[in-house]
């Protein structure tokens, strides 16, 4: 087991019940809202009928391809904003549960051939390229990532299923229920990129212990306070990380020829009475999924993304599920107080994994004193949210610090630091503590 650091916060995980249940297969909704990146070339037109696995759009710049999750008719195409993807184009589709015409069936087969065929015979990087899989970890092209890993001589390919945020546990659930497939997918990817070692990193959870996942071959259990995932992946040398779902999708592509049209998400939160881990077609509006989990009568806010610490707020129930949306949470609203409520308890400084003083940086940032905020190291903030979580005054220092950080980055782009200032100055009493190596258990 690897214990990563002492700073950070201990968060209540709230996952035991979720992980004890099977993964729920959410059916196809009548309307799907498929998000594609703004720069993608859309290959369908309004009114067009299309088959499942039809290529909807291609973003060649980022090497991202988007496939239809169902037989459907395109009803609208418009621009919008997605809480995780930013500016997107939405392809609104009306799904058809009935069969499709033979002509469309042939199209589906021919599409499959055009995009790579059945590459179970190939064990090279070309099959990864042909799969057009998007890594759920960071929503980047899997092919580009694996190529970069191969070029830079990465020694080990690891699954990052270190889910250290509350509620979110879709990766862990997938590992518990589909371990063989995920593991095989990981080995296939490692083999394709010529990487010799591989491992599956999970967070220390009681459910993982109880289900036997922690004892499986190739599983590394990581313990520690949040944000242990960021810390662990940052200090792991010559290691590439991918998501568990990504490996599962690649396994399915190699063995069944399936496209990445479904994702595993945790639908949970303290305002849902029946949270579930679900297998959901991409493009499903989140409102439909929340309805399946018995929302409580009290008001709640919707958060999508990796979890409640780093997720994004949305109030649009038609926000579509995308690859990389690991959780959809309905949470109790949190009241925010004015920054003058800060009474100097410095709990934020105690928990900051970067050793910053959020209370001081936030005060400077709030008054647009960017230079002073930079002197205190605002650009090193990783946006983990520990400071805002622990704040007893009820303020949100992270928001101010990230604003200052954005301003600092803008300034540095336009005005690079003089050579004399580019060598970093050592602070007084700098800590020399070494972090554990990635292969220590």
């Amino acid at each position, binding site marked *: 087991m690897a214990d990563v650091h002492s700073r950070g916060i201990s968060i209540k995980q709230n996952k035991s019940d979720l992980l004890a249940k099977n993964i729920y297969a959410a059916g196809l909704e009548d309307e799907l809202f498929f998000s594609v990146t703004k720069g993608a070339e859309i290959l369908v037109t309004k009114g067009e009928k299309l088959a499942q696995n039809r290529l909807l759009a291609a973003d060649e710049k980022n090497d991202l391809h988007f496939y239809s999750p169902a037989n459907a008719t395109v009803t609208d195409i418009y621009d919008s904003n997605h809480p995780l993807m930013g500016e997107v184009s939405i392809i609104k589709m009306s799904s058809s549960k009935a069969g499709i015409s033979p002509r469309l069936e042939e199209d589906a087969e021919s599409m499959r051939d055009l995009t790579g065929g059945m590459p179970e015979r190939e064990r090279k990087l070309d099959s990864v390229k042909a799969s057009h899989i998007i890594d759920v970890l960071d929503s980047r092209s899997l092919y580009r990532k694996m190529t970069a890993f191969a070029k830079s001589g990465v020694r080990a390919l690891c699954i990052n299923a270190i889910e250290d945020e509350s509620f979110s546990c879709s990766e862990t659930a997938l590992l518990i229920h589909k371990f063989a497939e995920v593991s095989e997918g990981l080995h296939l990817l490692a083999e394709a990129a010529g990487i010799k070692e591989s491992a599956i990193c999970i967070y220390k959870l009681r459910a993982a212990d109880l289900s036997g996942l922690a004892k499986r071959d190739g599983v590394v259990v990581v313990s520690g306070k949040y944000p242990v995932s960021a810390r662990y992946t940052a200090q792991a040398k010559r290691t590439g990380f991918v998501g568990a779902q990504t490996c599962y999708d690649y396994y399915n592509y190699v063995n069944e020829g399936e496209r990445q049209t479904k994702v595993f998400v945790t639908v949970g939160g303290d305002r849902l009475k029946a949270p579930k881990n679900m297998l959901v077609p991409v493009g499903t509006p989140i409102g439909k999924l929340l309805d399946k989990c018995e929302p409580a009568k009290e008001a709640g806010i919707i958060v999508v993304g990796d979890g409640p610490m780093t997720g994004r707020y949305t109030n649009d129930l038609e926000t579509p599920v995308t690859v990389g949306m690991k959780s959809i949470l309905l*949470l109790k609203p949190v009241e925010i107080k004015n920054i003058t409520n800060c009474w100097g308890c410095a709990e934020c400084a105690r928990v900051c994994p970067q050793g910053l003083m959020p209370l001081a940086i936030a005060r400077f940032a709030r008054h647009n004193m960017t230079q002073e905020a930079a002197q205190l190291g605002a650009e090193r903030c990783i*946006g983990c949210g520990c400071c805002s979580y622990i704040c007893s005054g009820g303020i949100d220092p992270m928001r101010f610090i990230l604003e200052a950080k954005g301003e600092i980055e803008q300034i540095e782009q336009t005005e690079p630091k003089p050579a004399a200032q580019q060598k970093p100055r050592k602070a007084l009493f700098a800590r020399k503590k070494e972090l554990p190596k990635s292969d220590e258990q």
Partner: protein
Amino acid sequence: MKAITTSPPFIRTDNTPAAIMGRVLLCLTSLLICSSFYYGARMLVNAAVSVLCCIICEYAVSRMARLPNTVKDLSAVVTGLSIILLLPATTPLWLIALLACFAILIAKAPFGGLGHNPFNPSACAVAFATIGWPELMFKYPSVPQTLPLFSSDMSGVSFGTSVVESLRNFSLPPYRLSDIFFGAVPNKAGTGFFLVIFVCAAFLIMKKAIRWRITASCLAVFILIAFLFPRAGTGFTAVFYELFSGYILFAAVFMITDPATSAKSLPGQYIYGAFCAVLISVMRRYGVYAEGTCFAIIICNAVAPAIDRITVKTAGRRHVINAEQK
């Protein structure tokens, strides 16, 4: 109307200033109960007057400034209790009321209230009383005895010499070591119960309610100075007399660890604690008054931001997480 956050994180701890202050309040109440055993119900009356005045002043300031009521964060109650524990039990009620009002209306409110005051309010109040009424501040009733409940007439009360005054005269205190340790000697009202203070310190450190680094470095340096420069007795006897006299231990646990006025950076806390110890030792040996800890604390509060400034980590620290990797 409440403002709801729409930026991450979307969960919070349930810690509040009231929760943290509540733990400190529990400890101060235990000291108050101990002092009531020695001085009778007069201590409870002192506490009631002090706390009530602090609450009324805090509420009045909140109303005048049209700010949310800050009494519920319990800081005024903590200030009120701290003040009477730092005064002799025979302090007149009018002076207690005056000091309580001074602590809130002069030392705290004009700077912006909790978290914005540069100086510890109870230390300011004690300093004000020491300068203004030294004849009342350094008269310690013998223990145990029952004091008049409301009256300021202390003609029937017997007084004694405190350990601090004996040390000031470089003479051995005329008390048994066990009496000194259990607080059965003339002293400030609530600062002589060292065993209780140790237990309170352990409780507060366990609950992360105080900055233990400040307490640890302050006591370590203070003990070192007492060992190297004894005033009465030698070696560990001298350390015993210095440590278990006056209110150094109370200050090290409850006053210099005040979150708003002490150093906040981790290395800074060690420096701050050490600096406090040096200054308190200097005040005791060379100050005008036998016990000048309150003045030392005020000076240290003034220096705390400077200590933070020079010890905060700047860019260049190793093991930095690249923000893009998150």
